[in-house]
């Protein structure tokens, strides 16, 4: 399994990319995951299903999202040309709607009436609540109580959309704990319930399925840049929590050897274990392990207990990372860096003031990295950075953090 050749970056039938991925779940979920995999592969190449999906992306979500040339930022930084892929302009304000629409169509096809989801920043929860309202399905969203506190606006949005938000008080009360609780719900109600997982992680087939539904980002970006610049970009940048917005942007470019890619993790307060969410940083406690159904890089202690994480951004505050990222890192196709809380907060303000766009704190990590590297690149080089979500949800939190300076 470890050295198999991967054709077009497809996982093997057990859901492995290299040594990463798989299906580490209680036996109760094994057969339901087999059924889900079969159901997904049945629609994956089905023209009718894909048409319905694309139609919804267009009419309901407003795709394609624009590729915007950030002229002032490019000029101010004095290096590469910077383009923003405007996922913040999609319906519900982030890329999460792409995957939610894809999976809700699958859930309907499978005849499921009850939908559950986890959410960190609340964007996936809002997207799931939205598609459930669209199709009249029952929706329960699990969310850590710490995240409910810092993303109170999204909690209310979900409730407005008719979803029930269940607070999770375990662990650090963030995304990982919400996923645990969603898995417990699923294992208990597996016959009636569809688990609409929001990131490119979890047991097979989720990482594959979520990546496929998000790859629309990269396909559009590739066409758009060819149209605007007549050539491919030199660098792609995106923030990486579980890794869905980044794999969505990166995947359609993986075979373009000249296109470099950098995933930006949450550097938090420091490199000390417990104070960040930079899984690929060995110095910070990152090590290969198994969590929540998949084998990947994990922040953990020497006894294999999962470490607490910290990030200013709830959506990146997670101890593991999608297995396809782990594989692409292992073969050197994608590089990973991190941006600290302070750098992200700075980028949040810089983009707001330079381009008139308030980015999500998650996306601000990608922007922060661009602020660092764009000046080192030449004027004929091109960067595309994924602006995965809008920052409205973060305004209260940022106001609190900046209040001393205002």
């Amino acid at each position, binding site marked *: 399994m470890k050295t198999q050749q991967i054709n077009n970056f497809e996982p093997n039938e*057990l859901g492995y990319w290299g040594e990463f991925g*798989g*299906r*580490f*779940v*209680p*036996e*109760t*979920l*094994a*057969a*339901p995951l*087999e059924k889900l995999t079969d159901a997904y592969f049945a629609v994956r190449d089905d023209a009718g299903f894909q048409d319905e999906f694309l139609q919804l992306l267009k009419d309901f979500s407003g795709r394609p999202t624009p590729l915007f040339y950030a002229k002032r930022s490019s000029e101010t930084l004095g290096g590469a040309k910077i383009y923003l892929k405007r996922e913040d302009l999609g319906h519900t304000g982030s890329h999460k709607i792409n995957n939610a629409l894809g999976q809700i169509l699958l859930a309907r096809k499978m005849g499921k009436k009850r939908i559950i989801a986890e959410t960190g920043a609340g964007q996936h929860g809002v997207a799931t609540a939205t598609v459930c309202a669209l199709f009249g399905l029952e929706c329960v969203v699990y969310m850590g109580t710490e995240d409910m506190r810092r993303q109170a606006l999204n909690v209310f949005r979900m409730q407005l959309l008719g979803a029930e938000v269940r607070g999770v008080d*375990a*662990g650090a009360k963030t995304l*990982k704990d919400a996923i*645990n609780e969603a*898995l*417990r719900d699923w*294992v*208990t*109600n*597996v*016959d009636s319930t569809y688990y609409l997982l929001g990131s490119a992680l979890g047991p097979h087939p989720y990482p594959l399925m979520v990546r496929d539904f998000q790859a629309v980002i990269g396909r559009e970006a590739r066409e758009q840049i060819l149209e605007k610049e007549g050539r491919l970009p030199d660098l792609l940048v995106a923030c990486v929590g579980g890794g869905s917005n980044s794999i969505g942007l990166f995947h359609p470019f993986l075979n373009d050897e000249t296109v470099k890619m950098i995933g930006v993790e949450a550097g938090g307060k420091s490199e000390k274990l417990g104070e960040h969410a930079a899984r690929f940083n060995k110095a910070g406690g990152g*090590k290969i*392990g*198994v*969590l*929540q*159904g998949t084998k990947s890089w*994990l922040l*953990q202690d*020497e*006894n*294999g*207990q*999962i470490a607490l994480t910290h990030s200013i951004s709830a959506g990146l505050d997670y101890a593991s990372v999608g297995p396809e990222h782990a594989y692409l890192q292992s073969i050197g196709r994608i590089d990973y860096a991190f941006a600290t809380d302070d750098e992200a907060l700075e980028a949040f303000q810089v983009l707001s003031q330079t381009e008139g766009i308030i980015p999500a704190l998650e996306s601000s990590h990608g922007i922060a990295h661009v602020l660092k590297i764009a000046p080192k690149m030449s004027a004929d080089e091109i960067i595309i950075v994924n602006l995965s979500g809008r920052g409205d949800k973060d305004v209260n939190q940022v106001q609190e953090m900046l209040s001393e300076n205002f």
Partner: protein
Amino acid sequence: MNNRIIRKFNELKTEDRGGFIPFIVAGDPDLDTTKKLILELGKQDAGVIELGIPFSDPVADGVTIQASAERALRNSISVGKILDVVGEVRNEGCETPIILFSYFNPILQFGLKNFAETAKKAGADGILITDLIPEEAAEFHEILTANELCLIMLAAPTSSDERLEKICKKASGFVYAVSRAGVTGARNEMSSEAENLVERLRKFTDLPIAVGFGISNAEQVAETWKYADAAVVGSAIVKEMMNLTPNLNEVPKDFVQKIGEFAGNLLPYKSKPPSYVGGKS
């Protein structure tokens, strides 16, 4: 395979009795007490003792075992320290079969081969990994078999016949049938799914079959023995343990004795074990 689990189930079969499998979380309230509890449960006619290795993210567990694991983790528990305790009870002459009950990551970080060798040396008899389905178990199965340790596999009501066959091929010692879809935790009523699952499993294996998840009193144990070879009781014991030790630093002197009595009362008989149908008869 030279292994206490196999010997024990042969013995139970000869005596035409059902097996009682209590579960406790290692390190709750502390490791020294865990050691005493193992010795005590052995005296209470436990067929096999399941020793839980606490994990930070126990997705298969309900609130009781989650809370107990959290308490245990406050004591900086590690796989190595737990195996030391197993070694200590063997030194004190305890011959009750012991299986470790764990999530995969703590074992993976300890090292699969290192785990098997250390566990065998300490005197453990097998391991059950809640999040290791047969498709992922090949390497570990091989390592455990080489060390004469049993891999206890879980089967669930949702498992297809095809899956049950795969599960039984990887299993040794006994097969653990999960009584219902869901997480661990005491229930007032046992589901009828369990009996059905045990019947389906018998088509694929001659191994003894234990039923667990939700069994919490002597009546349910007796009920389970009518169609299965052993009954696992976890959350009910763990809950009693937490009730008696609200403060981890103050373990009452009679704690071990009280838990022993509690476990003893989970057995449907008091003095002389009567005959139960059980097994394949």
